[in-house]
C-alpha cells in the first residue's frame, strides 16, 4: 500500500471513530428522548432514500472513473463529472431536507433528537462536500491535461476514491440507524 493510501486509510479509521461517537450520542438520545420533535415525527424516509440512491450511485461511478483511469480510457473525466453531479444531488437533497426541517420549526436546539440529528448528518454532509472538492480537483487536473499516469498520481487518485467510498459507507450506516430503524 502506498503512503497516500495508507494515510487516507488511517484518516478514515479516525473519522470512523468520530462518526461512531456521534452515532452513539444519536442512539442514546433516541432511547432517552427529552421533549420536542423526534425522528418519527420529523423525517421523510422515502425522500431521503431517493437522494441516498444518488450518493450510492456516485460510488459506482467513482469506481468506473477509477477503472477508466487505470485503463487510460478517455471516459475517466466523464465519469468523474457524473460522480460530482450525483454527489451534488445528494447534498442538494440534504440542504432541502434541512430547510424543510427548519421551516417546520425543527431547529438544532429544539430537541435532543434534533441536535444529534443535525450534528451527525451535518458532519456527514461536510465530509461529502470535502470529498466533492477533492474529486473536483482531480477532475480539473484531468480536464486541463495535468493528470498523468505515474505511480504517485495513481495512488493519489486511489486515495480520493477510498475516501469517497468511506463517505458512502458511513451514509449506509447513518441512513440505517437514523431513518430505517425508525420506520421499519
Amino acid at each position, binding site marked *: *500500500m502506498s*503512503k497516500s493510501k*495508507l494515510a487516507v486509510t488511517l484518516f478514515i*479509521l479516525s473519522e*470512523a471513530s468520530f462518526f461512531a461517537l456521534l452515532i*452513539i450520542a444519536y*442512539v442514546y438520545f433516541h*432511547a432517552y428522548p427529552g421533549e420536542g420533535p423526534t425522528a418519527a415525527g420529523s423525517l421523510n424516509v422515502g425522500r431521503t432514500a431517493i437522494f441516498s440512491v444518488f450518493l450510492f450511485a456516485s460510488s459506482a461511478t467513482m469506481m468506473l472513473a477509477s477503472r477508466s483511469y487505470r485503463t487510460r480510457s478517455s471516459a475517466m473525466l466523464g465519469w468523474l463529472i457524473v460522480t460530482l453531479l450525483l454527489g451534488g444531488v445528494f447534498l442538494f437533497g440534504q440542504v432541502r431536507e434541512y430547510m424543510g426541517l427548519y421551516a417546520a420549526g425543527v431547529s438544532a436546539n429544539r430537541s435532543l433528537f434534533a441536535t444529534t440529528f443535525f450534528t451527525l448528518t451535518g458532519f456527514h454532509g461536510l465530509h461529502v462536500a470535502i470529498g466533492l472538492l477533492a474529486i473536483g480537483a482531480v477532475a480539473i487536473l484531468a480536464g486541463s491535461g495535468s493528470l498523468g499516469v505515474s505511480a504517485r498520481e495513481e495512488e493519489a487518485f486511489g486515495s480520493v476514491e477510498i475516501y469517497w467510498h468511506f463517505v458512502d459507507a458511513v451514509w449506509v450506516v447513518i441512513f440505517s440507524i437514523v431513518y430505517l*430503524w425508525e420506520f421499519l
Partner: protein
Amino acid sequence: MSEPVGNLLRAWEFEPSVVIGCAVLLALYGVAHRDDPWRAGWFVAGAAAIFLALVSPLDVLSDTYLFSAHMAQHLMLVLVAPPLLIAGLSPRMVRRAMKIAAAARIERVLGNAIVAWTIGMATLWVWHAPSLYNAALADEDLHIVEHLCFLISATIYWWPIVSPVEEVRMAAMPAVMYLATGAVANSVLAILLTFARPGLYPAYLDPPDPLGILTMVRAQWGLTPAADQQLGGLLMWIPGGMVFMGAVVWVIARWYAAGDREIHGIAPAG
C-alpha cells in the same frame, strides 16, 4: 445442596439438533482427518464449547431467565468455538480442499478481509435488534437460525486470522487493524446494551420459572432485570473485548516468532 441449585445443575437439555449437529461435525472431521489427527484436540474443544453452551444448564438460563446468561452462551458461540474449530483443521486437509475450484472461489470471496469483517460484525449487530432478538426467543426454529448465523458468521470472521494455512491468513499489520476495528464494533454494541433502558428484551423482565430458581437468581445472585441487562452488555464488552485483544497479542507473537520476513503490503520504500 439447596433445591434450586440442584434443579439448575440437573437442567441439561439434549436438544436433538445440537446433539446431531455436533456429532455430524465430529464425524466429518474424523473422516477428513483420519490421516492427520494431531490437531484434533482443538477441534474437539470447539465442538465441546458449542455442545456445552447449547446443552448445559446455561441454555435454560439463557432461553428463559437471564439475558446475561444468553450473552455468555452467544460469546461461546462467537468468540470461543469458531477459533477452536478452525485451529483444529489440518493445513494439509485445508490445502487439499482448496484445490477444488468451487471451494477456492468461495474462500476467495468470503475470506476477503472486508467481506469477512462485515459479515461477522453485521450479524452481531442485526441479531441484537430487539425485534429480531425477541422473535428468536419466542420461536425455537428462528432461535436455531440465530445460533447458526452466529456460528457461521463468526467462523467466517475468524478464518483470515486463525486459519492453519498461511497463504489465506492476513498479514500481521492488517490483521491487527481487522481485530482492532472488530473490537470497536463489538464494544460499541456492548456499550449500547450496557446503558440501554432495562426491558430491551421484555421476555427477561418477568420470566416463567420452570426450575424454581427465580428467587435465587433475583435475590441471592442480585440479578434484577436491570442488573442482568447491564451484566450482559458488560460481558460482551470487557471479556469480549479481551478476546479480541488476546487475538491481537497472539498475532503479534506469531509474527515475531516467524522470523525476519517482511510483512505483506507494508514494505519500506525503495
